[in-house]
Structure formats: C-alpha cells, structure tokens
C-alpha cells in the first residue's frame, strides 16, 4: 500500500504540474486548466503548474476584496473555499498524505539517513496561526494606499512557493535576478531551514506551518474517508505510535487532526486488525498485512 501511495503522490504531482513547455516559453502555463483548484500546496507561479493554489488564490481575493467591492464584484473567495471545503469534507488531510507535492518532497528528504528528531506537539498549533493571521486577517486588514492587501503567507513564508516557483522563475527569467532583495532572502532562508528540518524530522512544514493542512485538519471528525479504530480489538500495544509520520497516537486519538491517512498504522503496525479504512462509516479495507519496519516520527 505504501508503494501505491508513493505512486499516487507522483501521479498527482505530475498532473498538477504537467505543463512542460516552460523551457521554450520561459514563463508559466497560462491555459484554462488554471481555473481548477490544486488539492495540495502547489504554487501557481510554478512554471509547470496547471492548477491554482487555493491558499495563494484566497489571499489574492481577500487582498483585493475592497477594490472588488468598490467595483461591484463580490469576490469573497467562496469558489476557492467551496473547492477546498468539498475536498476537506471528502478526504480531509488524506490529501496531505497522498496528493501534496511539497509533502512528498519532505517525505523524500526524510529518507536521507540521519538521526531523527520528534516535533513537539505544541508546534502543531503554529499552522492554525498562519491560516488565520497570514492567510485571512493580514491580507484583509493591512492594505496599501490603493486599498489592496498582500498575500502575506506567500510573500513572507511559503517555502513551497520559493522552491517550486521562485527559484525556477529566476532561472527562466534572468532579468528577475536584478530584483532579488531582502524579501527573497528571507523566503530562501525559510525554505532552506524547512528542507534541512525535513531531513531530521518527519514533515515539519506540514505539521507546524502549512495553512492548507490546518484547513483540512478542521475536517478530521467529519470527513467522509478516514481511519476507524475498533476499540474491542485494540490491545493498546502502542505499535501505531511508533510508525506514524505525523506523531499521532492513533489508539488514543483516532480523529486526530494531524492524521494524514497514510495507512502506516493500519498496514505497518497493527497486528490485530483494530484499524480499518472507512467511507462514511462503512469499512472499506483492513490491513494488507505488509508489515514493514517502523520509522521514527
């Protein structure tokens, strides 16, 4: 099942970044597919991106809300919120585990042999701060003389944007290199720090700073597809604690907002069939019994 998940990550990553004409055009894809919402965090200024990033778009819409309202345009971000809300209701953070390119990159980095460190649970609340403050409040409230707000998360934090869009665009458009300043340096340092952290800890950006992960986490109890714990079968052996890449103690918190439904606990740890995948309450699958060695979260 882990191999299937890896293939899904590769395929979704490719589908959301399938415009490979940029070496000839030296710019990003500008076709009609960009009206489709990317399920994961995938910068729409990435040269190969064929979909829009929901976090980037919502910040842009909220930043331009005053200007839009003055012109009689009611762009509150409902279509973007509706898109990720439907995805959240269906899958929740399963998307982080199966369909986010930046999550996949972090997983690959974590495979580099090194000493592994846990991430304190307290830091997981940081992503909710980024969602509320950097994605909603600041773009909406802090506006310039034209009444336009800025995409604060994209502009000052997002390491996915720097990696997938900033660096490739600097390579493709040399004239942009003259405009590099403190802003880029700040984002570049943040990107490097998260990438290094990903070698030593599992998915640090997803767990501490991703606003899209924070949004999907809100659906942990009500999402259609999720893992189910059969308490009658659970022996509290805690084997599921040791394999979870997100540090979830599944038997203690089956609806944990950090669960990305990677199925590691079900397939690699639980020997008692206490964990199953369900759709709307109906069991879909039990473990495939492909027990594999555990990795430190």
């Amino acid at each position: 099942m882990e191999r299937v998940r890896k293939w899904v990550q590769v395929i979704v990553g490719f589908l959301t970044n399938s415009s490979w004409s940029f070496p000839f055009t030296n710019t990003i894809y500008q076709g009609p597919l960009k009206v489709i919402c990317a399920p994961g965090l995938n910068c729409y200024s990435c040269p190969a991106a064929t979909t829009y990033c929901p976090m980037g778009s919502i910040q842009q819409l909220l930043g331009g809300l005053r200007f839009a309202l003055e012109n009689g345009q009611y762009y509150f971000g409902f279509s973007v919120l509706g898109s990720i809300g439907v995805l959240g209701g269906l899958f929740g953070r399963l998307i982080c585990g199966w369909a986010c390119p930046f999550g996949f990159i972090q997983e690959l980095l974590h495979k580099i042999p090194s000493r592994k460190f846990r991430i304190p649970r307290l830091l997981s609340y940081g992503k909710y701060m980024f969602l509320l403050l950097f994605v909603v409040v600041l773009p909406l409230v802090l506006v310039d003389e034209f009444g336009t707000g800025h995409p604060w998360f994209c502009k000052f934090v997002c390491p996915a944007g720097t990696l997938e869009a900033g660096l490739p665009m600097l390579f493709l458009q040399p004239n942009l290199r003259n405009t590099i300043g403190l802003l880029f340096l700040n984002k570049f340092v943040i990107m490097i720090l998260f990438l290094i952290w990903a070698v030593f800890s599992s998915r640090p950006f997803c767990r501490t700073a991703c606003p899209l992960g924070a949004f999907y986490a809100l659906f942990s109890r009500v999402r259609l597809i999720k893992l189910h714990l059969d308490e009658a079968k659970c022996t509290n052996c805690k084997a599921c604690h040791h394999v979870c890449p997100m540090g979830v103690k599944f038997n203690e918190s089956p609806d944990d907002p950090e669960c990305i439904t990677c199925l590691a606990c079900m397939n690699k740890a639980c020997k008692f069939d206490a964990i199953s995948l369900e759709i709307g309450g109906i069991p879909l699958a039990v473990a495939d019994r492909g027990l594999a060695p555990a990795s430190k979260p």
Partner: protein
Amino acid sequence: MNQDSRESRHKRPLRKAPFVVITAFLLLWMIGVATGEPSRVLEQAIQVCLSCIGIG
C-alpha cells in the same frame, strides 16, 4: 475482508455529517461561481505572482 469487518459493516451506521459538510461547501462553491469568481481566479493564476515567489 474477514467476518468481523463484515459484521461491523452492519453494526456501524452511515455517518451523515460528511454529506452535510460536502453539500454546504458545494453550495458555497456554486455561489462563488455564480458571482464570476473563477474568471478572477484564472486572471490571477495565469500571471507570475512576483510577491508570491518572494521577488516583487
């Protein structure tokens, strides 16, 4: 799928909350589409967002 999971399939009721949530957000999406928001999203997404990539 073993016998236990077949039994639990009958025991566990269908959860309605996901369908309520999905319907609510689908309605929200339709409202957004009705206001012409996707064309604005497309306008933004086909331009290189310099501030998004930390350059502008």
